[in-house]
């Protein structure tokens, strides 16, 4: 009994997604997803692996097109934009990819300088100051001369964050910013996300399956399941709710509404050779 509220037109919504359907080939990933993201909030998007979280970010960024539905960002319908309008909109986005996606042939400094060099006509001396300020903000001014291969996972994520906020975006998209980080790095990145959001008046969408980390920084948590927004909660709700699905997620239970087992014939049948042999590898 998913209790999704119908999407209303909020005047304070930066992103309005209405009834979006998306399928890879024949396999439906999103099935009528609707979602509003308010200006200034940090929204955590949760959901199991393969629930379509990265797909959702791709749709918002206009990298993939929905089969059906509207995706309004700051009053523009993303799937309908032509290339130059889309690129104009994207200069106001910052995106942090799952593993940072730093350019491996450029140094830390040049990675952060990249957006300025490509999108502005600023002189190198000004770019230098801006890059150092951004690196200072993520605590890595001292690493400016390193190459991406010399960074730890957490440092790479922070450099990518400095690069993502270089052009002072209005919207930040984070894809699994905590994956593969140790607890200290997770805390650092989480606080940075919150601090950047509040200091620069951004709006942030944080896709993650790390519940603890997202509860610490999010204003609101949505849970994706079955291609829809399955739950829309405050962090407080998540801690107290008795909803079986959210509890399974929150408490890390192996079995529940999300089954532990991949669909299979009954074990006894298969062991006794009653089900067809084609279902297991010889």
């Amino acid at each position, binding site marked *: 009994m998913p209790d999704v509220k119908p999407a209303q037109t909020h005047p304070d919504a930066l992103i309005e997604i209405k009834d979006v359907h998306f399928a890879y080939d024949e396999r439906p990933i999103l099935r009528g997803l609707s979602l509003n993201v308010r200006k200034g909030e940090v929204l955590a998007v949760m959901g199991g692996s393969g629930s379509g979280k990265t797909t959702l970010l791709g749709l918002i*960024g206009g*990298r993939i097109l929905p089969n059906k539905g509207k995706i309004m960002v700051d009053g523009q319908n993303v799937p309908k934009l032509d290339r130059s309008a889309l*690129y*104009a909109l*994207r*200069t106001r*986005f910052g*995106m942090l*990819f*799952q*593993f940072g*996606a*730093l*350019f*491996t042939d450029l140094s830390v400094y040049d990675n952060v300088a*990249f*957006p300025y060099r*490509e*999108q502005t006509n600023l002189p190198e001396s000004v770019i230098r100051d801006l890059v150092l300020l951004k690196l200072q903000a993520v605590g890595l001014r001292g690493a400016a001369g390193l190459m991406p291969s010399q960074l730890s996972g957490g440092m790479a994520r922070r450099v*990518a964050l400095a690069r993502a906020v270089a052009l002072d975006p209005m919207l930040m998209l984070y894809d699994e910013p905590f994956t593969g980080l140790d607890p200290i790095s997770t805390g650092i990145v989480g606080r940075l996300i919150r601090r950047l959001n509040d200091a620069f008046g951004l709006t942030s969408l944080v896709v993650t399956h790390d519940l603890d980390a997202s509860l610490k920084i999010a204003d609101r948590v949505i849970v994706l399941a079955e291609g829809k927004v399955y739950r829309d909660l405050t962090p407080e709700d998540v801690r107290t709710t008795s909803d079986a699905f959210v509890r399974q997620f929150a408490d890390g239970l192996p079995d529940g509404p999300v089954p532990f087992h991949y669909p299979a014939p009954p074990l006894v049948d298969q062991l006794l050779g009653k089900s067809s042999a084609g279902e297991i590898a010889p």
Partner: protein
Amino acid sequence: MSSVIEMIEGLGRSVLSALARLGLAGRFFLAIMMVIGVPLRRFSLLVRELYFSGVRSILIIVVSGMFVGMVLAIQGYEVLQRFGSSETLGVLVALSLVRELGPVVTALLFAGRAGSAVTAEIGLMQATDQIAAMDMMAVNPIARIISPRFLASVVSMPLLACMFSAAGVFGAYLVGVKLIGIDDGSFWSQMQAGVDFRLDIVNGLIKSLVFGVAVGLIAVFEGYYAPPTAEGVSSATTRTVVTSSLAVLMLDFVLTVWMFRGLNG
């Protein structure tokens, strides 16, 4: 009966998917052409790729050219002296190199040395989301990453083929004149008289240019569309070498037929 149908179905499917891939490559080529001005305006982008693809291939090209030239001299001398015309060795070697071996062997070596590296590099950039990240930063990856690498291949190929031929001629000179003892003067003067600028040198350059387009396109295409996994990138790298080599040899045949049409008519 049903197995025959299945076979025909399978054949049809693979023909269709090959055609679809060819169409995709054609669209990709057009997309590159739309932004080919970018590496010309921002010359530093092109220079970097010229260095990695072209300059770093010079050594292997020159050494291979030397050896091919030396072998040509030995083989050619053996045949020519039967007809008592060993002083024409210079022409034979120069024509073989400039018309055929220079462009073709250079393209094959270039595909293995530089083309595969370009495919692997772009494939890895794709697999690690670097291309997606660039696209999300509103920088067109076709303009910024793909077109300089493609153009570098087109520009490098004729230059490398010239170096290959020059090294080959030098190798033939070493073996033919210094070692076997053919007359120095007739080696060079016969060569000068026997090689036509328009028919031989320009045609050889045209071949190289076409091979540069083919190898460059295959290398960037395979990298860009490589599945974002370790196996995906490694098999794309292999495909670049195999497909480029086949394409070069087939194009060479077509171009040779076209260039020497009407010679016997």
